[in-house]
C-alpha cells in the first residue's frame, strides 16, 4: 500500500491535482463511509486553528476513522522543550497518519524526514497550506466545471497573502489569466510576477478595483487587508475601502462569476453580497471537508472507485 505525505502544493503534478479533485467530488456525493475503519489519525496543532482542525477531524470521522491529538500546544511537552522530532516519533507509534499545523516554516517537511508514517501539512507558518489550495481549486472546478482557461482576479493583500500565492502557483497547469488588484504597498511580489512570465501566464495589475475588471472575471478571489501590514497607518486608512466588494458592483458581471474568500473576512466583502448567488465563500469553506477527505485517503493509500 502506497502512502504519500502532502507538504506543499508545488509537489503535486497536474494529474495528481485532478485526481484529488475527482476524489473530492466523489466524497461530496458520498460523504459518509466506513473506509477509514480501524485507522487512527493524529491531529497535532502546535498552533491553534480551530477552523482547519475541525475540518480535518470531521473528514476523518465521516469516513469512520478515529482522531487523537492536541489543539493547544501549551498542554503538551513541546512547551517543556521537547523537540518536534521526539513528538513526531512518539505519535508515530500510535497513529496511521499525522495531520499537523506548526508556527515554524518547514516543520512539516522536517516531520516527513523523521517518521515513516505519512504527514499532511495543515499549515506551517507563512509557508504552505496545501489543503486550503486544494479546496480553492475544488471550488473553482466545481463552480466553473473546469480549471482550464479561467480569468481569475485576486484582490486585496497580494503581498503577504499565502493563499493567493499558492493558488497562483497551482494554477500554472491550467492556462489561467490573472488580474492582480492591490495598492502599491500590497502589490503581488516580484517573484510571483516572474513566475507568471516564466510560465507564460498572462496577467495585468491594477490599483483600482474597477467595473471592467469585475465584468470580465470568472473568479474574484478576495483577501483581507490587515492594518498590521502597513508601515504607515494613513496609507491603510486611505486604501482600506478601495478594495471592498459591494453587491451593486456585481450587476453587470458574468453569470458564471463566483466570489471566493479564504475567510475569516473583515469588511472587504460587504454583507449585502452574501445573498447574491455569486457569493461562494461559505460553500468554499464547506468544500474543505471533501478536499480533506480526498487528501487523507491519498495519504493513506486508500483506493477509491474514481480514476
Amino acid at each position, binding site marked *: 500500500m502506497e502512502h504519500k505525505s502532502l507538504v506543499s502544493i508545488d509537489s503535486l503534478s497536474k494529474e495528481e491535482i485532478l485526481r484529488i479533485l475527482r476524489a473530492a467530488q466523489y466524497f461530496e456525493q458520498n460523504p459518509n463511509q466506513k473506509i477509514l475503519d480501524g485507522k487512527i489519525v493524529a491531529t497535532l496543532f502546535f498552533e491553534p486553528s480551530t477552523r482547519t482542525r475541525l475540518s480535518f477531524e470531521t473528514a476523518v470521522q465521516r469516513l469512520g476513522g478515529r482522531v487523537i491529538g492536541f489543539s493547544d500546544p501549551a498542554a503538551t511537552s513541546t512547551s517543556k522543550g521537547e*523537540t518536534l*522530532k521526539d513528538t513526531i516519533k512518539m505519535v508515530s507509534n500510535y497513529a496511521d497518519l499525522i495531520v499537523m499545523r506548526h508556527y*515554524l*516554516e518547514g516543520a512539516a517537511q*522536517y516531520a516527513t524526514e523523521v517518521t515513516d508514517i505519512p504527514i499532511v501539512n495543515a499549515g506551517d507558518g507563512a509557508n504552505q497550506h496545501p489543503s486550503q489550495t486544494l479546496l480553492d481549486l475544488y471550488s473553482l472546478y466545481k463552480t466553473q466545471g473546469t480549471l482550464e482557461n479561467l480569468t481569475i482576479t485576486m484582490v486585496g493583500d497580494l503581498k503577504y497573502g499565502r493563499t493567493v500565492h499558492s493558488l497562483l502557483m497551482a494554477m500554472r497547469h491550467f492556462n489561467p489569466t490573472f488580474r492582480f488588484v492591490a495598492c502599491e504597498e500590497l502589490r503581488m511580489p516580484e517573484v510571483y510576477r516572474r513566475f507568471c512570465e516564466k510560465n507564460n501566464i498572462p496577467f495585468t495589475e491594477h490599483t483600482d478595483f474597477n467595473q471592467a475588471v469585475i465584468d470580465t472575471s470568472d473568479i474574484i478571489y478576495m483577501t483581507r487587508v490587515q492594518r498590521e501590514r502597513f508601515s504607515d497607518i494613513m496609507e491603510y486608512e486611505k486604501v482600506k475601502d478601495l478594495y471592498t466588494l459591494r453587491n451593486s458592483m456585481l450587476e453587470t458581471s458574468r453569470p458564471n462569476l463566483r466570489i471566493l474568500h479564504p475567510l475569516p473576512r473583515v469588511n472587504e466583502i460587504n454583507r449585502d453580497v452574501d445573498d447574491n448567488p455569486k457569493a461562494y465563500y461559505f460553500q468554499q469553506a464547506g468544500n474543505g471537508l471533501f478536499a480533506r477527505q480526498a487528501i487523507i485517503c491519498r495519504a493513506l493509500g486508500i483506493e477509491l472507485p474514481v480514476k
Partner: protein
Amino acid sequence: MNTEKKELAVAALRSGTVIDHIPAAVLFEVAKLLQLENSTCMLTIGNNLPSKTQGLKGIIKVADTTFPEAVMNRIALLAPEANVNVIENYEVVEKRRVELPDTLINVVRCHNPKCITNNEPMSTRFVVIERNPVKIRCSYCGQVH
C-alpha cells in the same frame, strides 16, 4: 616573472593547503570560515595582489593542514573561482577549483528566524538554484538566499 615567484612561494610550503584566486573583497570572510584565527599552524595571508583575470585577489597558505569537504563547499559559496592546492613534500598533489555541489547539507544557516532549522537541533539543507550569481533555496522554509 610574477607567476614564477608565486609558484616558488607555493613550493616553499612543505605540506599544507594553498587557496588561491580568492576575490580580495571576501578574503577575510574566507579566513574566518577556515577558522584561521584559532590555528597554531604557520600561515600566510596575502591580499590585494594583482590578478590577470579577476582584479585584486587574495591567497591563503596554511601549513600542515587540510580542510574537510564541507568547509570547501562553504568557500565555494563565497569565492566560486578559488583554487585549492594540497601540498605534500613540496609538491602539489591535488589541484582543483572549489566546487559548489547541488545540495548543501549543514554548510550554511537559514536567515529566516522562523525556519524550523533555527529552532530544532537538526541539519540545514539548501538546494543550489542558480550558480552565477549563486542562489540557494532552503529545503525547509523555501527562503532563497
